[in-house]
């Protein structure tokens, strides 16, 4: 086996502030062509103490070196479960930087912004087609922001019916944003147990007149399709509630099945997962929300609409929950997602989901028996193992750190919480079988190392820029900014 991870020359780099030299400049501005002006002295600050003074070369080298300490999708395989780290197409980056899109001010009158409005309209229509919802809003800036929009919409629908329901049911496999969001919408969270997937009986036992909604993820965070979803939605509806779906895992279903057709009322998309926009080291993403016909009036706004050949912002939105951001959403991300959808076409999106599911099942087939597989139902786009069978006193964390030495980004670990020592692998469709084989070989080798030489895992990683970091001291005595050299 060829091990990808190797050592190389890694350059050290100080903090910006430790480079700073008084009088250095890294910018140029045109000469001022109007008379100078001054504010009253009592409004003015002294110089910004501590702000760096650097040349352009200093700054470019600094951030170039920093970049080499990172690992991106372009560096190698990034099997983070529930994160859908697929390849980020380069043409999308060019598209978002076209001056007519990148330099457009958000307050430009709509008749002078017809191009972007047309793109937004087409994107929301395309997302509605992929998901089976009646309408999609593009405003939310991230998945959790979309969840907030969706739960506020649900609450607004209930309020409009004078319903004062106060509870939201959330399965124990849910992402932490789900309960946090329900709280922000003013709801009490009722956690419900699942046995891999939700059963009708379990939902029924919690579904009373005080339940406003059920929040599900489908496929769920175990990579399993909630195959009782239709019956569950019918039950929740019959008892006067609505069903929210976290769309984080939509990459398993494009062209296969549509959440809107399953009876789900509201779902957010993650354009930075399913629709290939880059994760940016923690954003920006975008979290559009799709809803059924009945919930359209409550969507955040104003939304984009087409009237004849004109695109404009809706004006009739008295029942809307209002806006969630200063402007129209992460438009630069929308451009990338639109480019992706246009590059793939409908058939291409379906092919992507099929290959994503094929890849996950291939990894499962190769690693089952080496690592414990806690749920045996057929996996969709991701597969969850545990560290139960691992020898040598090694745990999931050690496998993750050892994978770094082999040249891989570790999978999602210790999530979902219902699996002890979870190792959650989502390969996505953009990885070839060769890459998957090399990764599986590494995983198998690591299980062997745990048995024969556990120190290799316990002391890993050895080849990275830094070794394991002291997170306890970081939390006990937080140092959250640079305060000068000691």
């Amino acid at each position, binding site marked *: 086996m060829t091990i990808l991870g190797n050592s190389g020359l890694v350059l050290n780099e100080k903090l910006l502030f430790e480079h700073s030299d008084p009088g250095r400049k890294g910018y140029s501005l045109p000469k001022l062509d109007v008379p100078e002006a001054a504010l009253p002295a009592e409004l003015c600050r002294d110089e910004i103490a501590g702000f760096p003074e650097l040349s352009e070369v200093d700054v470019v080298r600094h951030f170039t070196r920093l970049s080499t300490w990172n690992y991106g999708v372009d560096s190698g395989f990034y099997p983070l479960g529930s994160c859908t780290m697929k390849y980020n197409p380069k043409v999308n980056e060019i598209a978002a930087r076209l001056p007519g899109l990148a330099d457009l001010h958000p307050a430009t009158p709509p008749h002078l912004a017809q191009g*972007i409005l047309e793109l937004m309209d087409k994107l929301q229509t395309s997302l509605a087609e992929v998901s089976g919802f009646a309408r999609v809003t593009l405003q939310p800036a991230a998945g959790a922001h979309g969840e907030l929009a969706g739960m506020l919409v649900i609450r607004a629908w209930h309020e409009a019916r004078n319903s004062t329901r106060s509870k939201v049911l959330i399965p124990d496999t849910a992402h932490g944003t789900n309960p946090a969001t329900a709280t922000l919408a003013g709801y009490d969270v009722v956690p419900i147990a699942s046995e891999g997937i939700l059963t009708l009986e379990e939902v029924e036992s919690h579904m009373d007149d005080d339940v406003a909604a059920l929040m599900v993820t489908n496929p769920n965070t175990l990579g399993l*399709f909630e195959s009782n979803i239709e019956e569950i939605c019918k039950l929740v509806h019959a008892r006067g509630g609505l069903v929210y779906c976290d769309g984080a895992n939509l990459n398993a279903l494009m062209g296969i099945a549509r959440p809107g057709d399953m009876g789900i009322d509201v779902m957010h998309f993650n354009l930075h997962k399913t629709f290939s926009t*880059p994760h940016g080291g923690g954003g920006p993403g975008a979290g559009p929300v799709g809803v059924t016909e009945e919930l359209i009036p409550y969507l955040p706004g104003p939304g984009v609409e087409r009237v004849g050949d004109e695109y404009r912002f809706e004006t009739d939105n008295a029942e809307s929950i*209002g806006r969630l951001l200063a402007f129209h959403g992460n438009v630069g991300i929308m451009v990338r997602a639109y480019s992706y959808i246009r590059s793939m076409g409908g058939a291409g999106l379906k092919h992507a989901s099929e290959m994503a599911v094929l890849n996950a099942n291939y990894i499962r087939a190769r690693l089952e028996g080496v690592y414990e597989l806690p749920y045996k139902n057929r996996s969709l786009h991701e597969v969850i193992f545990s560290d139960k069978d691992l020898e040598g006193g090694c745990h999931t964390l050690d496998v993750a750190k050892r994978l770094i030495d082999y040249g891989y980004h570790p999978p999602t670990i210790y999530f979902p919480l219902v699996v002890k020592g979870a190792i959650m692998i989502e390969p996505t469709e953009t990885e070839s079988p060769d890459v998957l084989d090399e990764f599986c070989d590494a995983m198998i080798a690591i299980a062997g190392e745990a048995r024969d030489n556990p120190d290799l895992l316990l002391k890993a990683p050895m080849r990275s820029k830094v070794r394991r970091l002291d997170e306890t001291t970081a939390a006990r005595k937080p140092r959250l900014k640079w305060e000068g050299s000691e």
Partner: protein
Amino acid sequence: MRYIPHTAADVSEMLERIGVKNLEDLFVEVPGSVRLKRPLDLPEALSETELLRELKKLAAKNATPSTHMSFLGGGAYHHFSPAAIDLLVSRSEFYTAYTPYQPEISQGTLQAIFEFQTMICQLTGMDVANASMYDGASACAEAVLMAVRLTRRKRVLLSRALNPRYRATVATYCLYLDLELIDVAVADDGRTDLKDLAAKLDNTTAAVVAGYPNYFGVVEDLAALSERAHEAGARMVAAVAEPVALGLLKPPGELGADIVAGDGQSFGLPLAYGGPYVGFFTVRQKDLRAMPGRLVGETTDLDGQRGFVLTLSTREQHIRREKATSNICSNQGLCALVTTIFMSLLGKQGLREMAGQNLAKAAYARQQLAGVKGFSLVFDGPSFNEFVVRSVEPVADVLGRLEKNGILGGIALGDDYPELADCFLVCVTEQNQRSEIDALVAALQGGAA
């Protein structure tokens, strides 16, 4: 498909290894009744050439500073962005990475965020900055929620001179949290009315929120606002939509602000029709554990080398779930990196010089416009790079006339402020040449004649 590597042979070998006959067998858990039985109704796939052709056509329908002289502001600003920024953030180790949960292979992102936190604290004069929020408006909403948590009070006073989109966002976030949002009037100078504030403040008030500068471009007397807020036991929230102003203005932290929330778009981010931008969020040390969002802290590794990690994450949704300080997860990491590089390049001198140019150009434009018959300045409080103009001629007609001259002259205020229906908001930055300002003045004169 160029992004999917599988050949037909790959697929059949993989299916065999899995032990199923065909792709269909992988979806057995998806019941037939919910399966989509037709192809997705989306246009055919495009090649790169065709895609860019289509997008360029769309882009050409939009008005930008290369097609029009622009005086639009109101929370998004056209500023100089050094060329190095885009090339650096285009390094794919930055933009194709995930949130830095594995610190050993994410030190680049982590150190950059640590530098971001440091510079945002230096800029605002505050103790602790988080690793970013979605934008200024949502950061402002989170600031209100934090003040409510800390004070356990339910009443929030929002200056009417706070950006109306920020006020609307606060209202959405607070919809079902049983809070009372109350507007505070604007005085004749364009600042928040201290008398009205005093009348509305009481010992149930959680927060006072004002823009700095405010939506009308006027610099608030933040010290006076903070003092009043603190007397009532409320928190002072300063919202900074135009951080370039902090190159010159006293930092809010020096003027008593308890939370400073703002937008970093001015620091190198393209206008992009409203996003992605980046919110920043700073607090006092004592309130650290109540703050939303991610934090990066300095520590050491096993060999004693300096390194950085995400820290204090027990405040966050992935650990504390329904009791978290916010539901925020991934937000605007790469945008925060853009502003970090911007602040590094501009540095101590550059930010001051840029702010000075904005101030001077706006002052020049104010002076010139004040001399045009039929137009007048509305507020006389000290202002930065925006100001409000009143027009005898209907505002829609004025802006329409300017547009015919290739000028985006400003934002009509009537929709957000019925009492200012005859007014518009003009923004002048260092990107507007004197000749553009003169053209604006000439075009306005043209109509009045």
